[in-house]
C-alpha cells in the first residue's frame, strides 16, 4: 500500500530509509536526474535550474560539490550527530590527499611516490586519515565543546607546517605537486583498465572525462550517504546522539564514551580523507595552503546552513555553499544586464548595481569604490549572515526549511 508518513506498524518500517512509496519514487527520480545531469538529454536539459549544470564549467562546480558532500557527511557525523565541534576537518582532508599522492603519485626529483593503483591509494587515503583521526580522538574525551574546536584548530596549522618541512610529499610550495588521475589499474601497467578522467566511449555513448569523473564521485557519494544513514539509524548512531545530547548521562546509561568518540573521529576522518584525495585528484595539482582553516570553517558553515545532524541537510548545505559564489557572480551579471535594459525594472536594478561612481549595492566593475561591493565580496557577507540567521531562527537549516515546505504541502490545500 501507499503507507502513511508517520504511521509505523513495525520497528523495521520506522527505521527504514524510505518508508513510503512517494519517497521511493521521488528518490528514484532524483537519483536518475543526478546521474543523467551531465548529459545533454532531451528531457533533463529542459528542466529549469538543471539544464545549465551539465555545462563544462558548471559540471566542475557540481563535481566539487559532490566531492565536498562526502567530506560534509563526515563532519556531519562528528559534529552534527556526535556533537564534537571540529575545526580540523581540512587537516584530515589534507592527510587523505597527501597519503593518496604518496601512495599513488609518480616520484619526481625530490618527491616521493609509489605509483600504486587507485584501489590502494583511495582507501589508503581514507585509512591514513582515519588513523590520524583516532589518534586525535582521546583529546575529545578530555575537552568538550568550544575547547575541542580550539584544540582542533591546532591540527590545521600543524598540517601546513608539516607540508613545509616535507616537500618530498607536498611538492614545491609554489605549485604543489600533481596527483594521480582517477584511473582504474590492476597494478602499475601503462594503460589503465578503465580511465575515469579521459574522454572515451562507454556502451553506446561518447563520454567526456569530466562526465566520467562526476559519475564516479557521485557513486562514491551515494555509497557514503548509505553508510552515513546506516550509521545514524543503528546502535552506533543512537550512542553518538546520546553523547551529543548529554555525554555524562550517556555514560551513565552504559554508552562507552571513549569508544564512540573514537568511532566518530575515525569514520569522520576516513570520509574526509577520501574526499581530500578525490578533490586533489580532481583538481590535479594543489598547493598545501588549500587545506587551511578557511576550508574547515567552510565545512562548519555547510552543516550549520544545511542543518546539523541530518544527511540531507549536509548535502543541501554543501551544494549551497560550494555553488553560491558562482550564483552570486551570475546574479550580479544578470542585474547589470537588467539595469541597462531601461524601463521601470531597469531603473530598479540600476539603483542596485553600481558602475563605479553611481550609487548601488553591488559593484559590477573590477575596482569597487565607496559603498558598493563586488559580487565576490558580497557572497562572503551573505554567507556569514546566513550562518547567524540559521542559528537563530532555523537550527535545522535548509533541511528544516524543506521540512516546513513538505509539511505545508502534506496538508495542502487545508494547511492552517
Amino acid at each position, binding site marked *: 500500500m*501507499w503507507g502513511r508518513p508517520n504511521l509505523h506498524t513495525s520497528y523495521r518500517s520506522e527505521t527504514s530509509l524510505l518508508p513510503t512509496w512517494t519517497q521511493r519514487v521521488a528518490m528514484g527520480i532524483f537519483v536518475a536526474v543526478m546521474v543523467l545531469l551531465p548529459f545533454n538529454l532531451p528531457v533533463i536539459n529542459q528542466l529549469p535550474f538543471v539544464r545549465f549544470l551539465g555545462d563544462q564549467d558548471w559540471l566542475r562546480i557540481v563535481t566539487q560539490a559532490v566531492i565536498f558532500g562526502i567530506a560534509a557527511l563526515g563532519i556531519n557525523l562528528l559534529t552534527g550527530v556526535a556533537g564534537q565541534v571540529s575545526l580540523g576537518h581540512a587537516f584530515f582532508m589534507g592527510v587523505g590527499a597527501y597519503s593518496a599522492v604518496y601512495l599513488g603519485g609518480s616520484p619526481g626529483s*625530490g618527491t616521493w611516490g609509489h605509483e600504486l593503483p587507485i584501489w590502494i591509494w583511495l582507501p589508503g587515503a581514507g585509512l591514513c586519515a582515519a588513523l590520524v583521526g583516532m589518534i586525535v580522538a582521546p583529546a575529545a574525551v578530555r575537552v568538550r565543546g568550544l575547547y575541542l574546536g580550539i584544540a582542533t584548530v591546532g591540527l590545521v596549522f600543524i598540517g601546513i607546517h608539516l607540508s*613545509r618541512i616535507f616537500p*618530498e610529499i607536498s611538492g614545491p610550495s609554489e*605549485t604543489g605537486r600533481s596527483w594521480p588521475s582517477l584511473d582504474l589499474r590492476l597494478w602499475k601497467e601503462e594503460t589503465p583498465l578503465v580511465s575515469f578522467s579521459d574522454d572515451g566511449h562507454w556502451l553506446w555513448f561518447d563520454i567526456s572525462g569530466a562526465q566520467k569523473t562526476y559519475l564516479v564521485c557521485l557513486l562514491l557519494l551515494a555509497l557514503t550517504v548509505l553508510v552515513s544513514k546506516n550509521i545514524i539509524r543503528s546502535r552506533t548512531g543512537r550512542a553518538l546522539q546520546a553523547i551529543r545530547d548529554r555525554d555524562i548521562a550517556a555514560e551513565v546509561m552504559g554508552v562507552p564514551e571513549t569508544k564512540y568518540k573514537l568511532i566518530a573521529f575515525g569514520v569522520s576522518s576516513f570520509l574526509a580523507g577520501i574526499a581530500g584525495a578525490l578533490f586533489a585528484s580532481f583538481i*590535479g595539482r594543489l598547493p598545501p595552503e588549500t587545506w587551511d582553516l578557511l576550508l574547515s570553517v567552510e565545512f562548519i558553515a555547510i552543516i550549520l546552513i544545511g542543518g546539523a545532524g541530518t544527511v540531507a541537510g549536509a548535502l543541501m548545505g554543501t551544494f549551497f555553499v560550494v555553488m553560491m559564489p558562482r550564483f552570486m557572480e551570475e546574479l550580479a551579471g544578470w542585474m547589470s544586464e537588467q539595469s541597462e535594459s531601461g524601463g521601470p525594472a531597469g531603473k530598479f536594478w540600476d539603483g542596485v548595481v553600481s558602475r563605479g561612481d553611481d550609487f548601488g549595492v553591488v559593484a559590477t566593475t573590477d*575596482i569597487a569604490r565607496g559603498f558598493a561591493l563586488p559580487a565576490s565580496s558580497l557572497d562572503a557577507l551573505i554567507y556569514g549572515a546566513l550562518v547567524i540567521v540559521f542559528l537563530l531562527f532555523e537550527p535545522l537549516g535548509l533541511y528544516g526549511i524543506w521540512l516546513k515546505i513538505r509539511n505545508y504541502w502534506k496538508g495542502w490545500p487545508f494547511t492552517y
Partner: protein
Amino acid sequence: MTKKRRIIAALTCLGLIAAACGDDEPAGSDTGAPSDTTTGDTAGTGTTTGETGGPASTTGDTGSDTTTADTGGDTTTADTGGDTTTAETGGSSVDPADIEFDVGIDEETIRVGMLADLSGAFAPLVTEITEAQRVYWDKVNADGGIAGRQIELVVEDNAYDVPTHLEKYEAIRDDVAIISQSTGSPHTSAIAQNLVDDDLIAIPLSWYSGWADADFGQNVFETYTSYCIESMNGLEWLNKNRDVQTVAIISFPGEYGGDGSTGARMAAEALGLEVVYDGADQVVPPTAENANPDQSAVISQIVEADPDLVWASINPATLGSIMSGAIGQGFEGLWSGNSPTYSFKLLGTELAPLLDQYYIASTYIVTWDTDVPGMEEVVTAMTEGKPDLPVSDVYILGWTEGQVTQAILERAAESGDMTRAGIVAAANEVEVSFNGLAPDQTWAGEPNDFVVRESYIYDVVLDQYQEASLGEGGGSTGWELLEGPYTSDLAADYQYEGPCFEPTG
C-alpha cells in the same frame, strides 16, 4: 485516493511549468563546437610585411616603408584610428579576410581571455593590472584592432583559488583564442597540461622558473628575466658602483626565494664577495593566519654579521619589518633585493626615510614614468582611460601583457593562420618589442638564446614620491633610474641550462 489525484495534479503542474521554462533551442550547445573554419588561401605571403610600428610592433619587420594597408579591400578596419603609426596593423601581408581561424576568433572579433584575481589575495594589484590591459585593448581597438578584428576581453575572476581557476578556465577554453593573463603560480600550473591539450597559450602573471621546463610549461609564455639573473645583475652592479664587499642573503623558503638567493650566492662567489650570513629560506613568510610573523632571528643575524649589503628575496611587508628591526639595532649597510621585495607603497609608511637612504631597487621592467620611449603612450592612455585610479607601477605589467598578446596575435595574422595551432606557432617565433618598457622578449630557439638577461637598477627617492590619482597629475612612485636595461658580465656569460634553483617535484 485523493492523494493520488493530488500527486497527478502536482506532477501535471510541474510538467507544464517545466515545459514553459524550457528553451526551444537545444540547450548546452555552448560546449565548444568551434566556429566555422574559413579555409582561406594563404597566398600572398611573399609580399613584405607592412611596418606595424606602434608599441608592440614585432621587431622582425623588414623595414620596408611601403605600407601595404588595405591589401584586401577590407577597408572597415585599417583606417578607423587616427593614429598613423598603428593604423596599418590590418595591413599584414595576408588579407584579413583570408586568415584561417578557429576557436575564439571570427570575422570581426578576437576574444582574448583573462583569468585574473579580482577578489582574492592579490586583488588590489591584479585589478589595476587588469584595468591597464583594458585600456591597452581599447587603444588597440581604436587604432583598428588586429588583422581587421576588434579585441574583446573575456575577464574571469579566479579569486586566487585553484579550483576556481580551473572552473573559469573550463568556462572560457572554448571561447577565447589566447589567455593574456593567468594569475598565480599554483593556478597556472594547475592548467598547464590543459593548455597543451587544448592548444591554447597563456601568459602567466607569475614568475616561476618552472615554466621554462618544456614538459611542464610548454604553452605558458613567461616574460622578463628570472630572479636568478636579476640577483646576478643586482650584486654585480652594487659591487662595481657601491663598493659592496660583504653580503648577507636572506630569502623566503620556496621557489621564489630559492631562485633569488641561489643567483645571489652564485654572483657572490664569482665576484669574490664574502657571504657573511646566508639566510636563504630563513625568513618566515606571512600567511593569512599570521600576517606579521616574528623575524627576530634573521634580524639579529644580519646585525651580528654586519655586511655591506643585504640581498633579500622576500616581499614588501616583510622587508619593512626586517629593515626597521635591523636598522633599529644599529645596522647601517645597504639593502637591495629581487623585484617584489620592494614596492613604492612602502614610501607611504614610516619606513620611507630608511628606504630613501639605504635601499637600491632592482626591477625586471621599468616603473611608472621612467623616461623610456614607450612610457608617454602608457601615461597618456591610462590618464585618459582611468583618471580615477592612483598612480602605480603595476600598469606597466598589464600594458606589457597586452603588448605580448598583440605581438603574438599579429604574428599569427601575418602568417595567415590564426587557428589555435597557428597562434602557438606564432608565439614560438615572435619577437616582442616593448618599446623600452621592458627588455625585448622572444621564445624562439633554445632557452639559452632567448632567456632575458637585462634588469633595471633604481634608486629610491622619497622627495619625488607623490601620491595622486592619474587624473590629478603630478603623481610619482619615487624611483630614479640608475642604470637599465643593465646586463652584468655575469649574466651575459651565464649559460642557461635550467632554473638556478631546482624545486623538488
